[in-house]
């Protein structure tokens, strides 16, 4: 078994028009910048992007938005300082937006990866974000039914990976990356360093069974 590929372009080659893509990262940390750039080059459009943020400045997801490749965004916090391309596309009515509370976003993704058919959470109960959703009272507390969120692809960023797809992470760059790898049909990992042998099993955070492709991209943001 060898999940390594030699370059970013090969890694993103399977992505097609209209695909749903989870993209890891929070703020500027743990974003697979190399894979996003390669996806931009590759040209797939009409994409659904599932990520915590919607890019900032001229980097990462903002590049895909600027190039008009994104049809739909599912995220918790699209509006942050410098998220000009998201705001432009949103104001022009060019993208469909689904805002999901951050913990619910993580858990919906986890549910998809873990084979859970939905779950009840107190988050958002009684608010606008629960409108139209099934609710239930358990021991006097209100809960909202939330459904799993899967994707065709995940683009994740890790510190190190090996040929079996095992991944380890650095500091707060972990964030959504491990759970997104679980929930996508085809998870592509950009790693700062591909190990010459195997990662120490004690240091593996994302077991290789969740990862389909590993590519080295040494640069850090």
């Amino acid at each position, binding site marked *: 078994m060898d999940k390594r590929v030699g370059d970013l372009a090969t890694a993103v080659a399977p992505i097609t028009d209209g695909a749903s893509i989870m993209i890891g990262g929070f703020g500027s940390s743990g974003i697979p910048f190399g894979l996003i750039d390669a996806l931009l080059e590759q040209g797939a459009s009409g994409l659904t992007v599932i990520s915590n943020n919607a890019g900032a400045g001229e980097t990462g997801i903002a590049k895909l938005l600027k190039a008009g490749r994104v049809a739909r965004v599912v995220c918790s916090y699209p509006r942050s300082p410098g998220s000009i391309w998201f705001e432009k596309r949103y104001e022009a009515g060019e993208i469909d937006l689904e805002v999901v509370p951050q913990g*619910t976003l993580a858990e919906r993704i986890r549910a998809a990866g873990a084979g859970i058919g939905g779950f009840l959470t*107190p988050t958002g109960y009684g608010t606008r974000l629960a409108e139209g959703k099934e609710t239930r009272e358990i021991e006097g507390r209100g809960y909202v039914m939330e459904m799993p969120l899967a994707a065709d692809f995940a683009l994740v960023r890790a510190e190190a990976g090996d040929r079996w797809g095992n991944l380890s992470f650095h500091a707060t760059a972990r964030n959504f990356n491990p759970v997104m790898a679980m929930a996508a049909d085809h998870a592509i990992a950009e790693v700062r360093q591909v190990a010459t042998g195997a990662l120490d099993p004690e240091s593996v955070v994302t077991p290789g069974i969740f990862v389909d492709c590993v590519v080295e991209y040494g640069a850090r943001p």
Partner: protein
Amino acid sequence: MTQSQTQTKPQAAGADGLTRLSDAQLAARVAQDIPDGSYVNLGIGKPTHVAGYVPEGREVIYHSENGIIGVGPTPPEGEEDLELIDASKRYVTAAPGAAYFDHPDSFAMMRGGHIDIAVLGAYQVAESGDIANWATLDEKFPPAVGGAMDLVAGVKTILVMMRHVNKDGSPKLLERCTYPLTGLGVVSRVYTDLAVLDVTPEGFRLVELTPGNDLEAVQALTGAKILT
């Protein structure tokens, strides 16, 4: 040393005769109520300043939703780790005893009731403890919720720090919120520049007035009855 000893003296009374705490003084006031040994989440923006004023001798562990518990001070310039940030996207350090984790675990800490205190800003707080802090009525701006709803749903004690009134003078403490809600009946205590109020089953109850203020003047700037 902490800054709390030097900056808690309220500012002189303004033209309306009211004495207001500065943002730093307000952060210092909130910090006095953070007990030793607490696990605390500080909301983005002004609440992050509370950490600088926790009295000496207390060990408080700070959680940040993006995957660290044990957030340490800002690193010296040039020593930033670009992949070590907090929820406000500022560079931070890991304090001794810190741990990193992914988003499902981070939100299990919040939603699962493991975090003792969250300090949040707000647009509005109602006498029932409802809080509105994620969206206004201005439809021009795309909605952005982040972790606000998860925090108020699961953290044991929700403290709010905010100005007592809006820039136009309209009250932020109300009988009912008019902005979209973040959570219902979740706020324990509100710290403003003018007063500290507890949320009780009967409504807002006065804990203290900023020294120099009288209740009548503060009540006039409050959209709900203040009980004493």
